[in-house]
């Protein structure tokens, strides 16, 4: 759990988040501090402890496989920053 390996540029890329050089520096330092604090978890013995993903575990919550009305097409497009022909407009993905 070494914090020395905290590569903020790599993590920002994974998060699709553009940071200014100033932000990289400031955030890097703050996150280093937070990660040092979190190190205390290392001291605990968690052998044999099951992880908790959800406090109220429910299993196999399904609904019948039946067609139901969903959000109308126009409503779904209404907040789009760019749209045309009933589609969301995006920059070119493939050459």
């Amino acid at each position, binding site marked *: 759990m070494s914090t020395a390996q905290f590569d903020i540029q790599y993590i920002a890329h994974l*998060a699709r988040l*553009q940071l200014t050089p100033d932000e990289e520096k400031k955030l890097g330092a*703050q996150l280093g501090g937070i990660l040092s604090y979190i190190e205390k978890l290392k001291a605990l013995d*968690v052998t044999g402890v099951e992880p908790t993903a959800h406090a109220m575990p429910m299993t196999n919550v399904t609904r019948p496989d039946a067609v139901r009305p969903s959000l109308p097409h126009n409503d779904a497009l209404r907040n789009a920053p760019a749209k045309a022909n009933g589609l969301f407009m995006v920059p070119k993905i493939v050459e």
Partner: protein
Amino acid sequence: MLNQLTISGLTGKLAKREVSAREAMQSCLDQIARVDGKIHAFISHNAADALVQADAADKEISGGTNHSQKPLLGIPVAVKDVLAVKNQPLNCGSKILGKFISPYDATVVEKLKAAGAIVFGRLNMDEFAMGSSTENSAFGLTRNPWDTTRIPGGSSGGSAAAVAADETIAALGSDTGGSIRQPAALCGCVGLKPTYGRVSRYGLVAFASSLDQIGPLTKDVRDAATMLGVIGGHDPRDSTSVPQPVPDYAANLTGGIKGLKLGLPKEYMIGGLDPEVKAAIDTAVKQFEKLGVEIVEISLPHTDYGVSVYYIIATAEASANLARFDGIRYGARVDGADPIELYNRTRGAGFGAEVKRRVILGTYVLSSGYYDAYYLRAQKVRTLIRNDFLQAFEKVDAIVTPTSPTAAFKIGEKSDDPLQMYLSDIFTISCNLAGICGISIPCGFTQNPKLPIGLQLLGRPFGEETLLKIAHAYESGTLWHEEKPAILSELNHSA
């Protein structure tokens, strides 16, 4: 003045036709006009729409619909900007959603409307519910009505301030690590976080999906019980909502609490706890003893790990939940030559500093090579924390703690030190990790300046009935909840 009433007070007057819903709503709107310039609890509100709803409520009342059928008929309820209300803006206190108008109602909003409430306003909040002071809003901060140089708490700071300042009769907030309870404590109102799964999260913009719950902020415990009865219940659209029947919380409030056992966790009365807060809690404990409650010292041994576990799990879940804000289907967009550049620029420009901090931290703890050491380990410690509570509830009916280690701090005091800000959540955070229910109620004030102090009660999973009963019994013997911030009379005289 009508805006000063509670839900029970106002429904009484509406039922007797002493006042109209329009008069009540107008009274809230007038109060907003008087005080919100100073307090800024609201990002926005649509007065015309609110009055249309009020008129509709009046029509129903004169048509014979009563409050047994619709418990909130004619009652103004304001909502945190994180909840979807059809045809209203939805911004989550952020720039990244741009001019987003919600195409649908959250389940809780549907339920409020079905119960006759006037759902209005977009209450200010820390961006994407990330914060404890409402200083992280892209729309400016909210000020504590008790001292406008201080924060109201967060992330539901707008909700708490609006209730405390009588700008609304009641409000909805959301709580992931204390975001209802802490601002309620700091603003002197009641704030309830239901058991995880008690209230549907459909239409709540997700921050941390295994921790988030919607809950009421109100002027007294009875109102919180009434609100929970309306918004609670299983929802097939939220697969984490639990099919547990909703009892009549308001009807089961009274009746003594003699013989109940209250646990006092020894790890919570620590250094760092403000001496005035400690004194108020000690006095409250004596008050409980007078009511016939047995105080039992208990131990929650993993208390100290709560903040660490939370800031791994919550940020990890947040990094996944906020991936959808990519400028493609909704919100503000900063263009790029390719989608990746578009995402980078859109998110870089649209998210505030605290959100970026948490998204980066969350991405890191989930990343390859670090997942086991951080996220998986945190989930295991979460089990230990949950077990602490479940074991305690075998001995006691509820647990009593301070809600916050201090009263409201000054604006800007902790905003440069994120870790200090996180540590102020120490008493509220474990409740969300364990999934149990919790409520904060007023229990006193600091001396100079006069700032509210909150008492927190924690209850078993789906133990809200007992929790509300205990809270109500304490409130019935005290007058803290009836006090109002001085600024209200100052601003009313100058109006």
